[in-house]
């Protein structure tokens, strides 16, 4: 900044740099788009191929000649067959019940706990909050064998109620954890104002915290929903007969039978089973992503 002549001499340089900067930006942009298009093609390839297959007849699938990536004779037959199949309907029904009960249980447990942990300091609350996070890091495959014995001891093996009992281990720790984060971000003056306005603790939770933290509650609910819907280890271990199976294990174990696979139906089944989480994602993408990132950024 001291010598004016030097800085003046630099000026043309800066201008020419600005030109190259623009070119550089354009190249970066083109490069970004190319990368994104290629990645999107690869990332979307499996679901797209599943969709293609699901529209094919078994004969067309079995035909080894020609391009497998196009449908010559599209049919909805695979879908109709599944939708009309009482067994598949049963899978769907089981999934819905399990998910519904688990989501409600999870949200009640985690909202109550998060409220107490974030606002009513009590003996051991800090330890408990850390415990919540640690259990979130415990994977389901670590405990499914002892849980198998415990659920068996309760006589709940091969029952959706056994699944409902253990699914909260998948959902409650994370949901509690992110709800603690959301509740903690509510300014303390808000509860003080409510206290002065005459609210009791339950009123404060119902009338202030839940409405204000609604985005967080939606994110946590979506998480609980997708996790319960997609759970695989527990149903695979605990359920043996089709009438108690949820969709995931139902599609994987019951549609895949024998040596002659009905690929069209398997793919249609998998897509139908994946539809609810995808729909939720499509409509509530921002909440979904907020929930994903909240685990690490909020906590």
């Amino acid at each position, binding site marked *: 900044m001291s010598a004016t002549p030097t800085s003046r001499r630099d000026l043309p340089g800066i201008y020419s740099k600005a030109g190259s900067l623009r070119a550089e930006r354009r190249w970066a942009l083109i490069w970004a788009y190319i990368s994104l298009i290629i990645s999107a093609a690869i990332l979307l390839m499996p679901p797209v191929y599943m969709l293609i297959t699901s529209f094919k007849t078994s004969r067309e699938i079995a035909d080894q000649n020609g391009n497998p990536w196009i449908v010559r004779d599209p049919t909805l037959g695979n879908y109709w067959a599944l939708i009309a199949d009482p067994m598949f309907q049963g899978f769907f029904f089981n999934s819905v019940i399990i998910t519904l009960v688990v989501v409600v249980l999870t949200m009640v447990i985690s909202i109550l706990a998060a409220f107490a942990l974030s606002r009513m300091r009590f003996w051991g609350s800090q330890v408990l909050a850390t415990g919540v996070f640690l259990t979130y890091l415990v994977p389901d495959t670590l405990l499914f064998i002892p849980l198998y014995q415990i659920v068996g001891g309760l006589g709940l093996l091969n029952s959706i109620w056994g699944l409902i009992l253990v699914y909260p281990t998948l959902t409650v720790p994370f949901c509690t954890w992110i709800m603690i984060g959301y509740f903690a971000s509510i*300014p303390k003056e808000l509860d*003080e*104002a409510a*206290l*002065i306005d*005459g609210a009791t603790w339950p009123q404060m939770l119902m009338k*202030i915290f839940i409405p204000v933290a609604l985005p967080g509650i939606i994110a946590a609910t979506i998480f609980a929903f997708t996790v319960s819907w997609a759970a695989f280890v527990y149903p695979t271990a605990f359920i043996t007969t089709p009438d108690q199976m949820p969709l995931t294990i139902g599609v994987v174990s019951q549609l895949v039978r024998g040596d002659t696979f009905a690929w069209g139906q398997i793919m249609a089944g998998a897509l139908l089973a994946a539809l609810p989480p995808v729909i939720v994602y499509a409509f509530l993408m921002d909440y979904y992503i907020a929930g994903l990132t909240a685990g690490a950024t909020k906590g």
Partner: protein
Amino acid sequence: MAQVSLRKIVKAYEGGVQAVKGIDLEIADHEFVVLVGPSGCGKSTTLRMIAGLEEITSGDIAIGGTLVNDIPPRDRDIAMVFQNYALYPHMSVYDNMAFGLMLRKFPKAEIDRRVKEAARILDITPLLERKPKALSGGQRQRVAMGRAIVRDPKVFLFDEPLSNLDAKLRVQMRTEIKKVHQTVNTTTVYVTHDQVEAMTLADRVVVMNHGIIEQVGPPQELYHHPATKFVAGFIGSPSMNFIPARLEQASGALRLHLPHDIVLNVPAARTALYQPHAGKDVLFGIRPEHLTDDKATDKANTAPITLKPDVIEPMGMETLVHFKLNGTEVSARLDPATPAAVGAPLSLIAHMDQMHLIDPTTDKVL
């Protein structure tokens, strides 16, 4: 009937911080009392103990004659306005104001009447359906006040309600608060660190420092008769000059001997008061507005001083000049028309009837 009495209130936070160290204060019904003091002196803590948001370590608090030490905030019949307003973000302005009444199971018609009335007083009727997010800072401030007014509580508590507003709005809202108090006439305790707010709003000002009360009194009294050096320096802007001096006996009168061999005569009216301190080192306190250019018509009780300014700050309606007197910063307030230049001798007069003397060992004003 809503006096507030604090008796020997002590607050020690976990970890041993003594935020309030034994406060006695009686606030009369309908009175507007302002707590001022530097940051961290325990103003908010005191207010929050009155509200019941903070437990008191020892002492007693009574509201309207009832001991409230163990009564939760909702049963103390108080309302509070927070610095960040603490409006419920998911409720409309109307619901924000109605919430407290709703929880107290007021009839719908009564709630409606009170909310509308408060909205009218505060001039926010057109905003009733909006959410707080859609309001400006000043409007939020009004809503927060509305929420307090509708409750018609025994006591209003304000914790720096204006400090999130810009300077112009602050002045406007200050007047507004005063007007509201004149209308509803509810006992009010108001916390601020802005002494102008304190002076303009208060019936009585409570100056706090380090968890104790330095002085309580009406604004004019604090200005003219500060009890301690802290109050003398805290009230008034720019703050009072403190110049080390020696009080000397001179043939029946008293004289102040300042650095640079400046000698000022103490007015005869003060002689009796200061006589016991003759011959001692004192601090000579004089406000910049009482150290002015030599234009006064009434020269009674003034003393001439000639000094060389270091810094000159024209402020428009006045000019501030700063000097160094033996290492002590001294300011004076001039008429902007007075020519002054850095380094050029400037003759001033000190209005000695406005002088203060402070005992440097006790920091008490004599």
